[in-house]
């Protein structure tokens, strides 16, 4: 079989992405028709920049979920190597030396093969899944930590603030790469330090939720007990499984090397979130509605979580988008230096690192993941920009 021409390659790629196109169209049609009822999310569809960003982000989200989660878009197994396909250019017909060729196998390497003869296109698609699996959740955890510590620091001020800010600055003064090199190594995993850090960091979401329910419903103890109870049971179960790998039911566990990466990324992001939340809190706590809550005898945590936090949601949402983008970059950095993830992993950072070594001769292995990462992060930045503009508008 001959190699495909560029127009064929593009057509075939578009075809492979069919589920993503359908999902994107459905999302946009639905969001557009109900945009007046969807609050800030709906207003996003008034801003061209925001829409473009959102489309780029959702493209990779759907790609990640369908490709990595449901094995839909990929054309070949991301780990399968085929010696004749080594460094072959885009559109090369698929051949195999050893074993019987699978008659159902996709007949081409759409974007060529890498230096080990793996399919670049499939690896790019599954690379999205590697990011989508980690980045949003790591950002969410960083937010939980940053909010739980930033609110009291900003609200009370004084010694507590001095201490927490000192800690935050301590972490921020570390060059991120140094921190990664110190934390994300097999030797450190052996000492168990990441597990202890996970044990501390993963407590924050539970603390956050318990404080949230308790402050809201402490006037109605029966309802409070239900909410707090459910949170504690589910939260601690997940906590035991994820942080300590000790789920009594044996259902929840977390691969140890992924845990290190996750912990490192949360750890690096939390201080920045802390600083933002602290600043916003110091600003909002001077408002009269906070004084009104104080004068009716509300407890501090109610004021922080229900009076201050909801009114900080605009800037926090914007930062959340930016932070997912930054986390994506951090994950790429980890992959680029071969830290944490397995060497076979199809994540974009590792693929770029593999590809760059032969860059002067072969472009095709390094460029697809580079463009993929660029477009996802750019999408998130544009989305954040659109959100910022729209949230400032009223």
């Amino acid at each position: 079989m001959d190699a495909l021409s560029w127009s064929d390659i593009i057509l075939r790629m578009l075809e492979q992405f069919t589920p993503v196109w359908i999902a994107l169209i459905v999302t946009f049609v639905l969001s557009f028709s109900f945009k007046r009822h969807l609050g800030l999310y709906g207003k996003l569809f008034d801003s061209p920049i925001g829409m473009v960003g959102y489309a780029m982000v959702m493209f990779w989200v759907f790609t990640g979920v369908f490709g990595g989660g449901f094995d839909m878009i990929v054309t070949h197994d991301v780990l399968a190597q085929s010696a004749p396909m080594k460094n072959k250019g885009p559109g090369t017909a698929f051949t195999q030396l050893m074993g019987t060729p699978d008659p159902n196998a996709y007949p081409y390497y759409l974007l060529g093969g890498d230096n080990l003869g793996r399919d670049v296109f499939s690896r790019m698609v599954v690379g999205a899944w590697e990011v989508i699996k980690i980045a949003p959740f790591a950002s969410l955890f960083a937010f939980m930590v940053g909010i739980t510590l930033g609110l009291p620091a900003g609200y009370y001020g004084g010694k507590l603030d001095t201490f927490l800010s000192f800690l935050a600055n301590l972490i921020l003064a570390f060059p991120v790469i140094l921190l990664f090199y110190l934390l994300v190594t097999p030797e450190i995993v052996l000492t168990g330090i990441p597990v202890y850090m996970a044990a501390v960091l993963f407590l924050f979401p539970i603390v956050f939720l318990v404080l949230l329910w308790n402050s809201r419903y402490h006037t109605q103890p029966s309802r409070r007990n239900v909410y707090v109870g459910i949170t504690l049971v589910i939260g601690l179960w997940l906590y035991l499984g994820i942080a300590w790998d000790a789920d009594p039911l044996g259902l929840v566990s977390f691969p140890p090397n992924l845990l290190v990466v996750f912990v490192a990324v949360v750890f690096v992001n939390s201080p920045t979130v802390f600083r933002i939340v602290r600043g916003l809190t110091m600003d909002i706590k001077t408002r009269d509605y906070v004084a009104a809550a104080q004068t009716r005898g509300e407890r501090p945590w109610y004021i922080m979580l229900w009076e201050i936090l909801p009114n900080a949601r605009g800037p926090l949402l914007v930062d959340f988008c930016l932070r997912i983008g930054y986390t994506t970059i951090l994950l790429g950095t980890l992959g680029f230096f071969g830290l944490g993830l397995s060497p076979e992993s199809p994540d974009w950072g590792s693929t770029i690192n593999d590809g760059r070594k032969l860059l002067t001769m072969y472009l095709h292995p390094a460029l697809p993941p580079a463009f993929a990462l660029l477009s996802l992060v750019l999408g998130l930045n544009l989305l954040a920009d659109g959100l910022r503009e729209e949230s400032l508008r009223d």
Partner: protein
Amino acid sequence: MAMFILRRVGVMILTALCLTFIVFFLTNLYPNLEKLAKTQGDFRMSDEEVASYLGRNGYLQPMAVKYGQWLGVVPGFVIEDRDGVTRGQCIEAGTAPEDAPRFCGILQGDWGYSTVFREDVGKILNDKLALTGKLMFWVMVLMVPSALILGILAGMREGSRTDRTLSTIAITTTATPEYVSGVLFIAVFASTAVGLKWFKGTATAAMDGANFENFFLPVLTIALYGMGYIARMTRASMAEVMTAQYIRTARLKGVSFPNVVMKHALRNALIAPFTVIMLQFPWLLNGVVIVETLFNYKGFGWTLVQAAGNNDIELLLGVSVISVVVVLVTQLISDIGYVYLNPRISVR
């Protein structure tokens, strides 16, 4: 003012001590030491042999003592071997134990010995810092003025076509980490596949004689990522200042638009970005590590990767100390500069 600087310096020293201790702690954990023993000695060492090797070299003392020795505030260890040879931290090969100084930590200028480069850490750092200093200098020369101009042009007339174009450019560069932009640049400008071949894909030659051809790509790669961020900060700050009442006052005084921007807006608009430029250093350091690895420029960042990758504990410690100090000093400068730039903060 003196009081203020003194307090900041105090906090800075405290931070530096905490950070170096963390690094010291993490690098001196037992699995790391075990690996060190095996690379220095023999990969098939038994656990007992590892322990005795570490004991002989003073690695098994309590963490705090080791840290003190490394800093140079606790006398260096002196251990008498079973075969009667006296070994000590401060005793160099060939000198008598009696002649050796008692203290030999980084405070005495003794940074230790690199197991990878087989050289004094102090000397390595010196050489490498000079190389990276050259790189950073050109990065700053390229990044700061272009970022400020970009930001001011964009923020001067918020919402205009210029603003939208420049902002999109700035957003794109912040969305492009160095390992992506570097790869793209090499692909476009240096690879045989595209065939432009304007620049060199490696900067190894630039270590001795830097020229436009071999040095521009690494400089551009680092500068671009930080540039977008500073430009966006400047734009936001400029746009905010341009809507301020006093700008309207100036306009309605009859001041022409270029003068409004230059005389009234600029100084106020530059206060925020100044802090940002200084706080960019931890990020720039990241960029340096990535770019030096990517372009094979054997400077400070490259050394960090080598040290960390090869478990070269004393070199890694040295690298960490330097980077932490660089970051903290720039933060200090940013704090002090902020006070100078902003007349609203009065220092008595």
